[in-house]
C-alpha cells in the first residue's frame, strides 16, 4: 500500500514540475526577452561651457530614438537612451561610463560631445573592447589608435592638419601671397590640437609664425591678446577658441582694429545662433570652419526634415534655435550605429565595429565612410566666410548668403572677400 502511494506521489511531483516548467517557459524563451529595450548609454554636456551644443545634441539624439522606435525599433526592440550630465568636466567621464556599463548594463555606448570629454573615456572603451561612436572629437584617437572608434565630425584622416588645411589653402591662393601668420588659442585640448595642425600647415605653406601663444580659458578681456598680435603685424591670424573666447576675440578685434588680411579658422561658437545674432556685423569678413550651412550644395537627404523637427523642440528647450552645427551630426552618428545594428543582426561590439569600418552609410549629413583611426576617410571641414551680416536678425542665417562656402571646392558656394576689411 505505502509503495503505491509513494509512486503516486512521485508521479504527482513529476507532473507538478512539468506543469511549472511549461508555465514558466514564456519567461525564459527569447521572444519574451525581445520586449527588453536596447539601451544606448552616454555622458553629455548638459551644463557647463559646452552645454549649449550638448543639450542641442541630446535633442537630436532623442529625435533619432523616437524615429527609430516609431519605425519598429532596432532588431524588433525599442531603443532607450541612458545618459548622465558630464558637466563639461572631463573628470566625470570615466565614472559615468563605468556606471553605464557595470550598473546600468547598457548594450551600446556612444561618446559625449567634444574632444575634452571623449579622450577620458577611450582607455575604458579599449579595455572592454567596446564599439565607441565619437561626437566631435578632434584627433581624440591619435594617441590611442583604437580600431573600434568612429568619429562623426568630418575632420578627415589627418584631423589636426585637415581642420585648418582649407584655411591655409585659401590664404596661399591669394595674390600677393601672405607672408606672416599669428597663431592663438585657448589652453585646452581641442585648441591645442587645432594649433598643432595649424602650425604644421603654416610651415608647409612657407609662412613665418610671428606670434604663437595660448591664453587661459578663464580670461575676461581679450584686448591685451589682440594688441599683442597686432604688434607683430601678421598677414594671417588663425584662432582656435571656444564660444566665450570666440565672442571675446571678435569684439576685441573690432575694438582694436586688427589689420590682418585673413582672420579666423578654428573658432568654435561662431556657428551658434545666439552668438551669430548678437555679434552680427562684427562677424563680417571672418573666415571660419563650419560643418553644415543651408547652401544648395549641402542639401542632403533627410536633413531639412530633421532640422524642422529639431527647431520645433529647440524653441522650448532654451538651446540653439537653428541647430545647424552639432544636431545633424548627433543624429547621424546614431544613424550609423542603428544601420550597423540592423545590418549585422546583433549587438556584438566587434562585429558592429568591423561592419562600420568596411561600409559607407547614408545619413542626414551625406554619405559617411570611415578611414584611418576612425576619422572620415575624406575631409569635409568647410571654410565659410561671413558676408553681409546685419545686426539682430536670426532669419538671415536660415538662408544661404550670409555664409559663403569657400572650401572644399566640391561644396563651394560663394566667393571670398579679401583682404579682411573692417
Amino acid at each position, binding site marked *: 500500500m505505502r509503495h503505491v502511494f509513494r509512486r503516486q506521489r512521485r508521479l504527482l511531483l513529476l507532473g507538478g514540475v512539468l506543469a511549472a516548467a511549461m508555465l514558466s517557459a514564456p519567461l525564459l524563451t527569447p521572444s519574451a526577452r525581445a520586449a527588453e529595450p536596447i539601451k544606448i548609454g552616454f555622458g553629455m554636456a*548638459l*551644463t*557647463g*561651457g559646452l*552645454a*549649449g551644443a*550638448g*543639450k542641442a545634441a541630446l535633442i537630436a539624439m532623442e529625435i533619432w530614438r523616437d524615429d527609430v522606435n516609431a519605425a519598429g525599433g532596432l532588431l524588433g526592440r525599442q531603443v532607450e537612451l541612458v545618459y548622465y550630465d558630464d558637466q563639461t568636466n572631463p573628470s566625470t567621464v570615466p565614472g559615468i561610463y563605468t556606471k553605464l556599463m557595470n550598473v546600468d548594463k547598457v548594450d551600446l555606448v556612444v561618446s559625449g560631445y567634444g574632444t575634452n570629454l571623449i579622450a577620458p573615456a577611450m582607455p575604458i572603451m579599449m579595455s572592454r573592447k567596446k564599439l565607441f561612436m565619437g561626437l566631435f572629437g578632434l584627433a581624440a584617437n591619435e594617441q590611442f589608435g583604437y580600431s573600434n572608434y568612429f568619429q562623426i565630425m568630418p575632420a578627415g584622416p589627418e584631423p589636426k592638419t585637415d581642420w585648418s588645411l582649407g584655411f591655409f589653402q585659401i590664404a596661399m591662393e591669394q595674390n600677393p601671397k601672405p607672408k606672416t601668420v599669428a597663431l592663438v588659442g585657448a*589652453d585646452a585640448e581641442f585648441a591645442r590640437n587645432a594649433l598643432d595642425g595649424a602650425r604644421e600647415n603654416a610651415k608647409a605653406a612657407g609662412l613665418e609664425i610671428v606670434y604663437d*601663444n*595660448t*591664453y*587661459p580659458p*578663464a*580670461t*575676461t*578681456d581679450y*584686448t*591685451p*591678446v589682440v*594688441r*599683442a598680435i597686432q*604688434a*607683430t603685424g601678421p598677414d594671417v591670424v588663425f584662432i582656435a577658441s571656444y*564660444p*566665450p573666447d570666440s*565672442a*571675446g576675440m571678435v*569684439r*576685441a578685434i*573690432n*575694438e*582694436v*582694429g586688427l589689420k590682418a588680411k585673413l582672420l579666423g579658422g578654428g573658432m568654435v*561658437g561662431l556657428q*551658434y545662433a*545666439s*552668438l551669430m545674432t*548678437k*555679434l*552680427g556685423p*562684427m562677424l563680417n569678413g571672418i573666415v571660419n570652419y563650419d560643418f553644415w550651412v543651408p547652401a544648395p550644395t549641402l542639401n542632403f537627404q533627410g536633413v531639412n526634415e530633421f532640422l524642422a523637427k529639431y527647431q520645433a523642440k529647440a524653441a522650448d*528647450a*532654451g*538651446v*540653439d534655435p537653428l541647430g545647424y552645427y552639432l544636431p545633424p551630426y548627433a543624429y547621424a552618428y546614431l544613424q550609423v550605429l542603428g544601420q550597423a545594428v540592423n545590418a549585422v543582426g546583433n549587438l556584438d561590439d566587434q562585429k558592429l565595429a568591423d561592419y562600420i569600418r568596411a561600409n559607407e552609410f547614408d545619413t542626414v549629413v551625406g554619405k559617411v565612410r570611415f578611414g584611418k583611426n576612425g576619422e572620415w576617410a575624406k575631409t569635409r571641414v568647410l571654410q565659410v566666410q561671413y558676408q553681409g551680416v546685419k*545686426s*539682430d536678425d536670426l532669419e538671415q542665417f536660415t538662408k544661404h548668403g550670409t555664409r559663403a562656402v569657400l572650401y572644399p571646392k566640391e561644396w563651394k558656394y560663394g566667393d571670398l572677400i579679401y583682404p579682411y576689411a573692417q
Partner: protein
Amino acid sequence: MFTADLLLNAVVAGVLLGGFYAAVSIGLTISFGQLDVVNIAHPAFVVAGSFCVFVLNERFGLDPILLGLFLTLPFFLAGIGLYRVYFTCFERHGEESLRGLAFFFGVMFIVEVLLIMSFGVDYRLVDTGYIGQSIKLGFIGLPYRLLVPFVVSAVVTVGLYLYLSRTFTGRAILAVSQDRLALRLMGANPISIKQIAFGLAVATAAIAGAMLIVIGPVEPSLGRLYIGRVFAIVVLGGMGSIGGTFVAALILGIVESVVGTMFGPSWAPAVAFGFLLLTLAVRPSGLFGR
C-alpha cells in the same frame, strides 16, 4: 614690435579690467571683509544679476548698466532676506564659520541650477550701441565695453566709501565689524546694521552683473571662474577696506594685462596670484588692512 605704446596700452587695459574686478569684489569686501560672512555665492549672485539684466534688456531695450542700477533695490531686499535666514540658522548659534560656508555653497548651487532651469545653458549676450567701439586718445585705445563699467565701478566705489565713512549707518557698519558689543552699547542694533550691510553687498552684485554681461557672454556656471579671483582681491586689499579692494583689483588687472601682453597670456593668472602670495608674505594683513 613690443614697444612703449604697447606696454602703455596694456597698462590702461589692465586698469579698465581692474575696475570691473573691483565692482565684482566690492560686495564681498563688505560681506566677507567686514561682516565675516563667507559669501562664496557672491559670484553666483553676480551671474544672476547678469541674467536679470539680459531679460530686461531683451524686453525693454534699455541700457544694461542702467538696468543694473534699477535692479539694486530688489537685490538689496533679497540680500536682507538672505541675511535674516543666515543669521537665524547659523550666526545666532555661533556656527557661522563652517556651516555658514556650507550654507552659501548650497545657495550658490541653487542659484546656478535655477538659472539653468529658467534660461537654459546657452551663452547670453547683450548688444548696446557702444559695444565694439573704442575711443582713441593718441595711441591709447579705450574700448567702451570696458570703459563704461570702469567709470561706473569707480563711482560705486567712491559712493560706498563715502557712505561707510560719513553716514551714521555706514559708520555703524564699520563699527559692527570691529566690535559688536561696543556698537550695542552705543544704541544701535547690530543685527539690523548687518542686514543692511549684507543687502548692500548683494545690491552691488546687480551692478556687477550688468557689467559682466556687457563685457562678455554669460552662462549660468560662469560665477565659478570668478570665485578665486574675487577672494584673492578682497584678501589682497586688506579685508574690509573699500579703497584697498579697488587698488588690489587694479593691481590684479594690470598684472594680468601686462603679463598677458608681454609674456603670453598663459602666465597671467600665475603671476597675478604670485603677487598676492608675495604681498601676504610681506604684509599678512593685506595692502590696506588693519
